[in-house]
């Protein structure tokens, strides 16, 4: 039977825009790729992101490619609820079937969402982990926040997650600060998966790791995305990361999406001048 109607997206970003400073039609028209900047010359307003739309379904990973200042961080922060965007809407389908409108939620609701439904894996493990406490304790943080109160059950779940993310169990009770960079990232992944979220945001998850370590972490992430059926957004400036993890991606420049497409298509047949330059530089 022919059914290529995709399942409803788990995460939907619609018309997202965020500006620092006042905006009107000219600020929008006079910023972006054509203007060559996200900062409006006359008013000084920075249009960090504008007119950004995409969606991601469970089991799918979408890449967001761009250099620093492209607006990808702004988009990530808006999804994470860290900033309230100037305009647009971000919605997330929770595991229980309800819809969370992230752009309308209170800080307390955002925090609950981040415990149960939306996880972020940061580039710097120190942003996602407490390095003073143990690997198990870092996972316990997520579990207790979700209401786990049984010590043995918490231990068991933490061990299960650490095993899955290939952290040796004899390190479970060591402070994460004593771990290598790659191992910290694995603990961060374990923590991110603790409450089986429906969406995970991966922010440069392997940047800063040695190539061989990064390959192992990437491989692990790829397997976890398949296994858990998560909807993932992968932000990276590194094409090898995007290529390995995602099926679709968007390219951002000066706060706008300049191109979107299938990942292999964007890498082999980029259409926008900026995409071509990025790919050319990466392939050189």
């Amino acid at each position, binding site marked *: 039977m022919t059914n*290529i109607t995709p399942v409803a997206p788990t995460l939907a970003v619609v018309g997202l825009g965020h500006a620092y400073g006042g905006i009107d039609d000219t600020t929008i028209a006079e910023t972006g790729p054509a203007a060559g900047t996200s900062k409006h010359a006359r008013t000084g307003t920075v249009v960090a992101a504008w007119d950004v739309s995409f969606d991601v379904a469970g089991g799918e990973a979408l890449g967001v490619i761009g250099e620093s200042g492209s607006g990808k961080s702004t988009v990530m922060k808006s999804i994470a609820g860290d900033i309230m965007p100037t305009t647009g809407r971000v919605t997330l389908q929770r595991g229980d079937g309800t819809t969370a409108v992230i752009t309308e939620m209170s800080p307390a609701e955002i925090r609950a969402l981040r415990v149960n439904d939306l996880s972020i894996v940061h580039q710097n493990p120190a942003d996602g982990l407490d390095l003073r406490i143990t690997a198990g304790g870092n996972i316990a943080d997520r579990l207790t926040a979700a209401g786990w109160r049984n010590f043995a059950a918490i231990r068991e779940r933490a061990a299960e997650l650490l095993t899955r993310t290939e952290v040796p169990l004899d390190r479970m009770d060591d402070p994460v600060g004593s771990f290598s960079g790659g191992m910290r990232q694995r603990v961060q992944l374990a923590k991110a998966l603790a409450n089986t979220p429906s969406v995970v945001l991966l922010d440069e998850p392997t940047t800063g790791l040695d190539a061989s370590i990064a390959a192992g972490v990437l491989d692990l992430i790829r397997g976890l995305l*398949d296994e858990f059926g998560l909807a993932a957004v992968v932000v990276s400036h590194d094409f090898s990361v995007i290529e390995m993890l995602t099926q*679709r991606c968007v390219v951002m420049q000066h706060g706008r999406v300049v191109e*979107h497409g*299938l990942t292999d298509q964007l890498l082999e*047949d980029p259409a926008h001048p900026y995409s*071509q330059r990025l790919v050319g530089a990466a392939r050189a």
Partner: protein
Amino acid sequence: MSSQSVLDVVQLHKSFVLHNIDGRRVDALTGVDLHVNVGEHVALAGSSGAGKSSLLKCIYRTYTPTSGDVILTDTDGTRLALSALGEREMVMVRGRRLGYVSQFLRAQPRRTPMDIVTAAGILRGTDVTTARVLAMEALDRLRLDKGLWDVHTSVLSGGERQRVNLAAGTISPPRLLLLDEPVSALDPANRTAALDVIADLSAQGVAVLSVFHDLEAMERLASRIVVMRDGRIESDGPPIEILSTLRAVAR
């Protein structure tokens, strides 16, 4: 086209605009019309740069066609305009209906042949248990040493990787399979086994569109050969006819 049609390519054009090399325009396909039916194996021939790989990639949407249509007809007769399909829909079509086997294995270095081939079966809708059985059969038929089934692909040779790639591409085969030099790195014995596997696809009703660099493979597999030149189709006919012409040119 008859109801047996699987692929219809209509007036397909592909140009690359190289924005960073003074906006230069390179034409890869200049109006290709092509039809492939159920169970048919159409081999693309022509010198390098003729547009064979570009055609496969435009069908698979690794390249975005500049104009023209690529239509895949599903088992129930639904015609899917691949060239106009949304990205997520295209990802879904790639799963079960459309496959692409390139010359090189693209997989994570730390996965094993068994994992990769099983995952490909699952992607095309086979349950895990069946997929494992089929994966073992496929690897066996392609003569991959059993001792290599559970090692990371990073330790495999080029020929071994190519067989893993072909096993993954042909397990629970899709409706239309695109093959781009899938046996280029194989020694004669393994190559024969691989060609047998590909030949079987046609018997199963899979439509195949292929690029091989040697005429023997075409002779063994193709039900029709299409010769390309300068981004368009130069001739299209039965293998015996086309091959004799090609051989004459080669001499």
